[in-house]
């Protein structure tokens, strides 16, 4: 192109009016090149060019050229619709590969248009005419993407336009099929809004996966689980189990663990039942395993985990291949039933328990005896703090104090045991035996503790209730005391989550129809739990009864129950949601909010968010508004960064209910993330003028900060101090005090080894956790429901397992400063007592000496353990020093200097060696690295959770860690458990289960 350019398109435009066609063509083709500069001039002549395009006599190519020119002019004028329609007229002259803004914009427009037409056509099921030219453009674009190697783009467009054929083509043609597939799975989860369509995509993906020479079974099984196809999973598992290679078997076990993580009980059970039994006589073994599924309670749970002797004996008689299969099958069934993981989690939580009894003690002392709300809050806090650790020291040490709990407080105190012993499947019954209703006839025990015990059994067996269902049913049927019915209903619902068991349903229904408020409420919730995510017809039955009954409690229970039934159904639930949200009764509308929350949980669906926001500001009932805001938390938990932004305005609402909802919404969706914006949003709310807003904010803050160390966010420490202050303050309102007590429980939940996690590592939602939190948020009306939060706890652990599902000694590295993720320091008694000062001084010097000695002989392997332990001691010493400084000025110098010296003497390591099983908090996961010369290699690269390890040196004897099963030690002081851990290498002795705690009787 020469330096000289024309200064006007006038000449060419004039040429358009020339009579000769060739001149017009000449002008058109030149104008096409100049249009980017001279579109304002050309725009006045658009009618002429349009008429050229419409001129039938004109040669086709020229007409297309004219159309392209008009399209460009319209593009510059911002009339994209006109521009697109002319571009379509331009046919092949519109070059999709051109790299200009015009082409990019129009392509985007074309794809949008096409996608919306396609989805409209598919959704309304009637034929919408799609311009074939539009389709052609999109297809050209797709082909171009595929040939250019931009597979992700092609997949994105294909998914958006619902062109599954093209999607398949893009995936199979891509150079890295595995990578593309996993990308596609991600995309389909985060961007495909319609559930049915997502199903189609996933079905396709599974099909593609299966065609691959070396399929990624982990991903396939995840897809199949989402599609709810147990048969497919069972087939894959069987294939892997039957394989010669041990690696395949390990993979199968890993798959099983991953599936279990999603807590989809009904699905897992059907996978398990579909795994074919081995032929020949080894059938006996399998049957023995299968009896676990039978409703009658049996002890084979123990056998299958621990007892290996029967297997070899049977193996001798069968053909070896089948024998191996049988043995593997036994393992996998154990995993699928959830028992293996529960057992290992229990052991982990027990052995790593770091809960701080002093905090509880402080709470207990500061709470007024007569204030029953705070009294039971303390009991709740204790239960949450020790959730799943089986450590009930605090209760046993304070029997007198505990006995002040009466009536419903007694109910929840007893139920608290269930939280503490959560997952203690084998001994659950015997643990609770003293409180359970005796022989149906209702013995001498208080109905409150009996009801509580039944609820506790449900909590222990939550989502794995095969062994306990029958017992709970019997108890339910044999009583007509509403408190016991209440407990039994909750227990049944918990243990049979999502199983949709008809018999249980009928039992509960008969309780509901007694129309007793207390029992009916529990029955409503329980029905929901039972039918989670099934979207059955029964929901309308429940809704009808909710209209019939007079009791608000029952309506509320039913409303929540109905909401639970539509869990995860997305659009499928729309009719029901519509019906509920338009109801006259605010309680049903309130249920409608939960239905919205649960049906769209974790989808971040815009429609649902819009609807919720609408209700949050427009409903007349405070309850509905509060719940609408709260429900946002559920919808958004897959995208926690969004939530604080969306609810930030609501958190400044004049209406305290809305503020409360905003606090909990942030708490729910950002749980365990320690997200800075979330904390900033909650901080002002913790000192709100209204007491219940403070309560909600404190609880939400605790949920957000669980497992976040002070080193990574200093506000955690400030929050802990704030809690302490509120608890100690005599004049604080009961409501916020209760919030503070619960918050301290949640903050240190599960012996400081669990977090609240609503998504599994594969980004699927964890059903139990989500509904646990949903029911938990009901504590506004009914405190005992607080315990449902324990369902949302998942251990922050890396548990490596070998082929025998034992925990071998395996070391790996956390490439970050240990202090970043360490346990919070144990609190110390802040006392004015001088006697306490003396041991302090001794302790700090001795530690210093010890540290110096250790440093010389420091070894990589034990660095973690020793430094961790001594640091906690030393730092407790320094804390003590500080504590006493504040109290007594004269002691300051000595202690102060000694601590400074101490800190200077020990520079912090940049990394930390962790020993299997180890505590790995979520924030730490990205720092986890494997040691290079390690004996074991994980089957799947995962920084936490259950990971199967491949043994590279099979013939060496294995050293096992985590051998100490929970025993009823009298006082598992911090560190005591850790000291015993990892030393002995005996086989896992599950028979050393803890003794049931001694029964403590309430003085009634």
């Amino acid at each position: 192109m020469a330096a000289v350019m024309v200064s006007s398109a006038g000449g060419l435009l004039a040429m358009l009016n020339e009579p000769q066609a060739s001149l017009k063509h000449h002008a058109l083709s030149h104008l096409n090149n100049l249009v980017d500069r001279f579109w304002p001039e050309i725009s006045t002549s658009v009618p002429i060019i349009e008429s050229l395009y419409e001129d039938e006599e004109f040669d086709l190519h020229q007409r297309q050229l004219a159309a392209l020119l008009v399209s460009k002019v319209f593009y510059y004028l911002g009339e994209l619709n006109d521009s697109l329609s002319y571009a379509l007229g331009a046919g092949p002259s519109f070059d999709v590969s051109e790299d200009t803004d015009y082409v990019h914009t129009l392509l985007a427009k074309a794809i949008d248009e096409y996608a919306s037409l396609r989805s409209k056509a598919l959704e309304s099921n009637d034929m919408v005419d799609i311009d074939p030219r539009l389709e052609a453009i999109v297809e050209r674009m797709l082909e171009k993407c595929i040939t250019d190697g931009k597979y992700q783009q092609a997949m994105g467009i294909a998914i958006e336009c619902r062109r599954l054929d093209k999607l398949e083509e893009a995936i199979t043609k891509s150079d890295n099929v595995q990578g593309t597939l996993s990308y596609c799975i991600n995309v389909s989860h985060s961007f495909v809004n319609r559930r049915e369509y997502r199903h189609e995509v996933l079905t396709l993906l599974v099909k593609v996966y299966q065609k691959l020479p070396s399929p990624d079974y982990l991903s396939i099984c995840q897809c199949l689980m989402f599609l709810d196809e147990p048969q497919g999973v069972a087939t894959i598992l069987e294939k892997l189990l039957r394989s010669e290679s041990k690696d395949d078997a390990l993979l199968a076990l890993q798959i099983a663990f991953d599936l279990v993580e999603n807590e989809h009980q009904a699905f897992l059970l059907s996978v398990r039942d579909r795994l074919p039994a081995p032929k020949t006589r080894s059938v006996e073994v399998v049957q023995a395993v299968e009896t676990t599924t039978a409703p009658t309670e049996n002890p084979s749970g123990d056998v299958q985990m621990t007892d290996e002797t029967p297997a070899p004996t049977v193996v001798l008689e069968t053909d070896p291949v089948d024998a191996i299969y049988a043995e593997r099958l036994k393992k996998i069934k154990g995993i699928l039933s959830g028992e293996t993981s529960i057992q290992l989690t229990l052991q982990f939580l027990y052995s790593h328990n770091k809960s701080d009894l002093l905090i509880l003690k402080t709470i207990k002392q500061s709470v007024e005896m007569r204030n029953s709300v705070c009294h039971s809050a303390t009991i709740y806090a204790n239960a949450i703090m020790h959730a799943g650790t089986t450590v009930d020291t605090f209760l046993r040490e304070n029997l007198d104090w505990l006995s002040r709990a009466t009536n419903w407080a007694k109910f929840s105190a007893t139920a608290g045991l269930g939280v503490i012993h959560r997952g203690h499947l084998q001994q659950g019954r015997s643990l609770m035996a003293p409180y359970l209703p005796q022989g149906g006839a209702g013995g001498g025990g208080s109905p409150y503790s009996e009801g509580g015990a039944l609820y506790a059994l449900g909590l222990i067996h939550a989502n794995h209730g095969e062994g306990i269902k029958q017992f709970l049913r019997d108890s339910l049927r044999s009583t007509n005391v509403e408190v016991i019915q209440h407990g039994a209903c909750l227990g049944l619902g918990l243990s049979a989550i999502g199983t949709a068991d008809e018999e249980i349903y009928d039992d509960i229904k008969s309780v509901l129809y007694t129309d007793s408020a207390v029992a009916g409420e529990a029955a409503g919730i329980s029905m929901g739990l039972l039918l989670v995510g099934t979207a059955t017809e029964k929901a309308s039955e429940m809704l009808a009864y909710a209209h019939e009954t007079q009791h608000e409690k029952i309506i509320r229970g039913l409303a929540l129950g109905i909401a639970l039934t539509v869990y995860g159904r997305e659009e499928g639930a729309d009719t029901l949601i519509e019906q509920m949200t338009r109801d006259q009764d605010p309680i049903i509308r309130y249920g409608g909010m939960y239905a919205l929350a649960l049906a769209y949980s974790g989808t971040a669906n815009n429609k649902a968010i819009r609807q919720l926001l609408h209700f949050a500001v427009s409903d007349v009932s405070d309850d509905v508004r509060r719940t609408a805001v709260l429900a946002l938390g559920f919808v958004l938990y897959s995208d926690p960064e969004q939530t604080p932004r969306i609810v930030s305005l609501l958190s400044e609402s004049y209406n305290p209910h809305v503020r409360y909802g905003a606090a909990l919404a942030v708490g729910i969706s950002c749980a365990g993330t320690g997200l800075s914006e979330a904390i900033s949003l909650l901080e002002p709310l913790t000192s709100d003028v209204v007491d219940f807003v403070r309560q909600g904010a404190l609880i939400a803050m605790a949920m957000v900060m669980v497992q976040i160390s002070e080193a990574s966010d200093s506000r955690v420490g400030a929050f802990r101090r704030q809690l302490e202050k509120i608890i100690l303050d005599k004049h604080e309102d009961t409501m916020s005090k209760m919030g503070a007590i619960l918050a301290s429980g949640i903050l240190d939940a599960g012996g400081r080894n669990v977090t609240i996690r609503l998504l599994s590592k594969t980004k699927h939602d964890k059903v139990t956790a989500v509904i646990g939190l949903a029911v938990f948020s009901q504590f506004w009306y009914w405190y005992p429901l607080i315990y449902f939060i324990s369902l949302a706890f998942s251990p922050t652990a890396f548990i490596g397992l070998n082929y025998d599902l034992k925990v071998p000694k395996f070391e790996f590295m956390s490439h970050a400063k240990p202090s970043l993720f360490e346990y919070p320091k144990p609190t110390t008694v802040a006392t004015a007592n001088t006697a306490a000062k003396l041991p302090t001084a001794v302790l700090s010097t001795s530690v210093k000496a010890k540290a110096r000695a250790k440093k010389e002989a420091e070894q990589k392997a034990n660095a973690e353990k020793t430094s961790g332990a001594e640091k906690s001691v030393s730092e407790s010493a320094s804390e003590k020093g500080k504590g006493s400084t504040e109290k007594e000025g004269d002691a300051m110098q000595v202690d102060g200097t000694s601590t400074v010296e101490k800190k200077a003497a020990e520079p912090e390591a940049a990394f930390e060696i962790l020993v299997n099983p180890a505590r790995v908090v979520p924030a730490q996961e990205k720092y986890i690295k494997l040691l290079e010369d390690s004996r074991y290699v994980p089957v799947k690269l995962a920084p936490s959770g259950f990971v199967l390890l491949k043994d590279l040196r099979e013939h060496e004897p294995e050293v096992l860690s985590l051998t100490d099963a929970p025993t009823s030690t009298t006082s598992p002081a911090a560190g005591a458990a850790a000291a015993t851990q990892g030393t002995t290498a005996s086989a896992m002795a599950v028979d050393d289960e803890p003794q049931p705690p001694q029964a403590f009787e309430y003085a009634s």
Partner: protein
Amino acid sequence: MDPQLTEVSQQFERFKAAFVRKDYSTCSDLLSRLKVLLTKFTSLPPLFENTPNAAHELTLARDIYEHAVVLSVKTEDQDAFERDFFQLKPYYVDARNRLPPSPQENLILGLNLLRLLVQNRIAEFHTELELLSSATLDNPCIKHAVELEQSFMEGAYNRVLSARQTAPDATYVYFMDLLAKTIRDEIAGCSEKAYDYVSISDARQMLLFSSDQELLAYVNEEHREWEVKEGFVVFQKAKETAPCKEIPSLQLINQTLSYARELERIV
């Protein structure tokens, strides 16, 4: 020499010959063939490629278009004039520093100005004027057009008409005739507004006709709505008194009052 160029030159020679012969229909045929041939040259606008014959081709093309413009005047085809002029313009504007200026340039520019004046496109006239340099403005052709416009605006119509004699080129005459008609239209428009009726002789004088017949013919052709009776031209008929819209004041007042009353009631 490039065969294409030779062909164009030959055709152009024939065109010129026909032009001199005043055989305008042959000219038009040849011209359209020439235009098509010109599109083959890449050195011409809008591409301006630097081909070896660029200067020659440009000059030739400019020549052709200049002739085309003049031809359109001769054939009294204003549309063709406009088309050809616009196609010629890049040669004047954009190719200014590649070609020696054309001797015809000012003449053609002046013609264009005149055309705009005739078509009463005063805005475009001034736009064109702004684009000219001050030196060009002194050129008699341009100056002529500018002066005409001034007289036209002032309403010194007699000066416009007398300017016909001072036209710098024979081609201008065509536009000058057209201009006279434009002026007559202006005057007619004014008198229509100014008078209810005028006598025929006055009208003839005003509209610059030499005879009453001419005037009557003009009235018949252009202003059918005028009435000629009893020695007068009556414009009255044209003046349709637009009925002035009455403001429904009473209704409005009532409405406003009732709003005020109701507002008071609400508060």
